[in-house]
């Protein structure tokens, strides 16, 4: 039987974020019809790219301008509108990115209709309603069976290689009128559209520093290197707890969970908790003075060296 599958498109400055393409590729399975949910954007501009990845229906969700309380940025309002879209188009499964935005949106949707949801999954089988995600601090992989009328999947960014599948599409207009959020008002929405900083969770390359960086000033060396590599800057818990960098840069169990193509760990010993956040990286390169550090035996390449000397050399070569 044909399944209607919705994908929530995450935008950045009006453009489709790169990590959407892998998610759409994961959603495009046997006997599926793909609906892209585009919120507050000009869908005409996005049409060619969405068609290239197999989207046949673009649901253009717009908000009336006269709404109070900045509904366009209110995740509680979005969740309600998206549930209406799901009902309108008889959607069987919804995919979204397990990003900061997704984590504030998809569980709201799941809660409204008591639908099953797996966040941070990296494999989905729509024929058998199964999803795979990591559990127990990334030490195990769980295969989870979802039961319900509508199934929700929060997909880990970068976990699937994007594959094109050209089709043509139609745009369906959906007015999200008269929906308010009781109890939650947006006072200030952080401007997530400013892409001056490369997002840790979605970065292709991450340069991260730990105890071996020794102080806050030395993180400037990593920053310069990351800039040349167009990489995001990460850190271990030690670096965060020492006050060298803000918590938002922490990778690990209690920080961001990342899967970049390349993870360069500088002066990071590689605790179990740090691994929980980066073990699904494509390639891990470790630079550490201590050849017995845990990370040296669980990476792809390692150099027994002082990151403070290697990184400036690396920056020069880029």
């Amino acid at each position, binding site marked *: 039987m044909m399944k209607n599958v919705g994908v929530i498109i995450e935008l950045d400055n009006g453009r489709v974020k790169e990590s959407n393409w892998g998610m759409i590729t994961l959603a495009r399975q046997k006997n599926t019809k793909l609906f892209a949910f585009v919120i507050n954007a000009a869908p005409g501009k996005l049409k060619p790219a969405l068609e290239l990845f197999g989207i046949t229906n673009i649901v253009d969700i717009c908000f009336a301008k006269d709404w109070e309380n900045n509904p366009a940025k209110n995740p*509680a309002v979005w969740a309600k509108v998206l549930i209406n879209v799901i009902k309108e188009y008889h959607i069987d499964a919804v995919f979204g990115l397990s*990003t*900061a*935005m997704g984590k*504030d949106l998809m*569980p709201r949707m*799941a*809660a*409204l209709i*008591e639908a*099953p949801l797996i*966040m*941070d999954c990296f494999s989905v089988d729509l024929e058998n309603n199964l999803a795979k995600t*990591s*559990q*127990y*601090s990334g030490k*195990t*992989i*769980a*295969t*989870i*069976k*979802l*039961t*319900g*009328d509508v199934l929700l999947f*929060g997909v880990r960014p970068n976990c699937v290689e994007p594959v094109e599948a050209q089709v043509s599409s139609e745009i369906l207009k959906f007015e999200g009128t008269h929906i308010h959020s*009781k*109890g939650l008002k*947006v006072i*200030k929405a952080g401007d*997530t559209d400013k892409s001056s900083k490369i*997002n*840790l969770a979605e970065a292709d*390359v991450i340069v991260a520093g730990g105890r071996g960086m020794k102080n806050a000033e030395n993180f400037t060396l990593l920053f310069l290197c990351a800039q040349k*590599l167009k990489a995001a800057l990460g850190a271990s818990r030690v670096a965060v707890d020492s006050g060298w960098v803000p*918590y*938002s840069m922490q990778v690990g169990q*209690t920080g961001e969970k990342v899967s970049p193509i*390349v993870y*360069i760990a500088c002066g990071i010993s590689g605790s179990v908790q740090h691994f*929980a956040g980066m*073990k699904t990286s494509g390639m*891990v*390169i470790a*630079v550490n003075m201590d050849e017995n550090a845990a990370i*040296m*035996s*669980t*990476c*792809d*390449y*390692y*150099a027994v*060296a*002082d990151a403070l000397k*290697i990184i400036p050399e*690396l920056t020069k*070569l880029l």
Partner: protein
Amino acid sequence: MQIYICVKHVPDSAAHITILDKNRIEENVNFLLNPYDEHAITESIKIKDKYPGSEVIAVCLGKQDAEKTLRSAMAMGADRSILIASDALHDSIATARILKAAIEQDGNPGLIFTGKESIDSEGMQTQFRIGALFDFPVATNVVRLDIEADAVIVDTQMSGGIANTYEMTLPCVIGAGRGLNTPGYPTFPDVVKSKKKPVKKIALTDLLVETAHSSTNIIALEPLTQTRTPEEITGNAKEIALKIVNILKEEAKVI
């Protein structure tokens, strides 16, 4: 005001996890209070200090042994606790229904806290399900909280150090994030005192919770095995840097 904190008894993140029958873990490891829940408790105590007369109640759905986690919560300042004892594993859909029933039976929540996620199942959603069942607003990954007479202002951590600021009416549900506060370690007298604080034990069957029509069930669990075979890069600083550049170019193809 009654402040309820939903806490979870989870395996220590440093514990070695062994899988049994390909679908569950060997539970003979150290279990403790979910780290994010510590922030929820710490924040509740701050609110209680601001509004004397408030009561902080920790609630846990878990096996009998979870009483240990409730004792930790009370050592950190919770006044009393509720244990809904159950050996079975419950998904977030069922858990939210059970916690809601237990809270509703016990009192009148002005605020409900959870951690932003548990470090075992990493589901990130129970707080929203509790909110929906009560019809309370919800914010998750909260890193700042200001409470006023009938509203709270919260900052929620988004990516890249960006925060959203929401105002919510009371009662509401807060998923505590790590930036919210710095939990203090209980002192010895705190621990002694916590042993005398009451734990109300409820049988799951007494709550008469209806089974939801939807669910998530773990059908298989496998260890995440490392398949990397480390290769050493040698040379002086310049040579190592050059080799890394080559790897990034030729093998990873990111530059």
